[in-house]
């Protein structure tokens, strides 16, 4: 009943990209998401592709990992490609078969839009393949620090994210335990009429949620006993370090943005 989950998509490594500061990676991705929409002709798409390709090469990851990131959305890409080809009727006609005809402009648009989407997926997949969720959380906390002035609970959010990440495996184990315990008592999750099967979820969920409340109480007491009092004066075991490579990356993505702005049609 419980799916085999991939334990994190992160692939350990020690390449330049792996060692980059998560803050620099996050900023790069943030800018990239905007500049992808600047590209609107052959040369700008080529430059964007080249940049993406270099980053992928630097991670030294096998292409199959990136392909796995693309797989869930590939049908959308195919669907929009077809839609563009079939609906757009501008430019020269390239091909005709009865009602079915393909125009140059439709093909061009469909190709570019699909490419834009594939670039976006590749870039963001590279981030998650080379950075652990905990690193990203730390990076986000550090980047969002200025927003604390506007009453955004940055530190609290980051802490809750870390606790949540830490407890997913624990609670999953607990779920399996409850599942087995209830099966031993005769609850049948996999056969019988649909109504009965849905009803069988009740004896799984009630203990699961109640145990979550208990666990929360214990954890909160443990934190209070150790003197947790928010972000003030708290030291960190994981320190973020901004190095030369991070500055180089920021400079190159800024340069790319300027070039794309100048060259776009």
């Amino acid at each position, binding site marked *: *009943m419980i799916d085999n989950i*991939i334990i994190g998509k992160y692939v350990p490594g020690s390449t330049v990209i792996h060692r980059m500061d998560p803050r620099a990676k996050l900023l790069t991705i943030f800018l990239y998401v905007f500049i992808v929409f600047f590209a609107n002709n052959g040369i700008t798409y080529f430059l964007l592709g080249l940049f993406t390709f270099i980053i992928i090469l630097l991670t030294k990851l096998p292409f199959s990992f990136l392909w796995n990131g693309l797989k869930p959305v590939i049908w959308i890409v195919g669907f929009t490609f077809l839609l563009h080809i079939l609906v757009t009727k501008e430019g020269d006609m390239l091909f005709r078969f009865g009602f079915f005809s393909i125009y140059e402009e439709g093909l061009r648009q469909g190709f570019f*839009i699909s490419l834009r989407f594939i670039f976006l997926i590749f870039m963001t997949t590279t981030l*998650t393949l080379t950075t652990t969720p905990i690193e990203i959380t730390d990076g986000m906390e550090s980047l969002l620090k200025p927003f604390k002035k506007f009453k955004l609970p940055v530190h*609290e959010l980051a802490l809750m994210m870390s606790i*949540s990440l830490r407890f997913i495996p624990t*609670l999953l184990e607990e779920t399996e335990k409850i599942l087995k315990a209830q099966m031993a008592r005769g609850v049948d999750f996999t056969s019988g009429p649909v109504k009965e*099967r*849905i009803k069988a*979820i009740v004896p799984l969920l009630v203990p699961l949620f109640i145990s979550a409340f208990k666990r929360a109480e214990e954890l909160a007491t443990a934190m209070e006993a150790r003197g947790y009092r928010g972000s003030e004066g708290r030291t960190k075991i994981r320190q973020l370090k901004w190095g030369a490579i991070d500055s180089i990356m920021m400079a190159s993505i800024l340069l790319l943005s300027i070039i794309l702005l100048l060259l776009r049609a």
Partner: protein
Amino acid sequence: MKIKSMVLIALFAALTAIGGFIKIPIPYVPFTLQIVSVYLAGCLLGPKLGMLSQLVYVLIGLAGAPVFAEGGGPSYIFKPTFGYLLGFVLGAYVNGWLIKRFQLVKTFSIFLANFACLLVVYLLGCLWLYGAMKFIFDKSLTIAQTLLFGFVIPIPGDIFLCILCSIIAAQILPRTNFLIHKQGVAS
């Protein structure tokens, strides 16, 4: 924010992720229990904490933990289905607000609150679907198409779970000391 509230938010975010991993084997339309935690977060934690728990869930997914239906990572924002996840955040708030404001305890009245939450989830889901197709893929769907793909096809399983969760919430509510009806929990 109290430490206990923070821990509860974190654990409910984890429970939402776990709900997504549990599949109910029903022929033809196997569905997951993901939305259960959205209903229950609103019911049991109240509007503010319920909403935060879903926000934390969405954030850890975006940070790359594979907790969404198809993995995780920031690329999820570009998926036409990301709106449902945003709907979880707002839906939990609406659900909790209704239950707290009207002091709901009966199964049927909790069901109505859950149903309102479901509608909010689907409203945001459809809006995002429409927007993503229009702005990311440069092709707009018609309103009828958006409603068909984004509402009519996926909703039946979630209505089942909606009824189920009202039963569960009515059972759990009296067993916890954290009744959102009491004051001082959601601070």
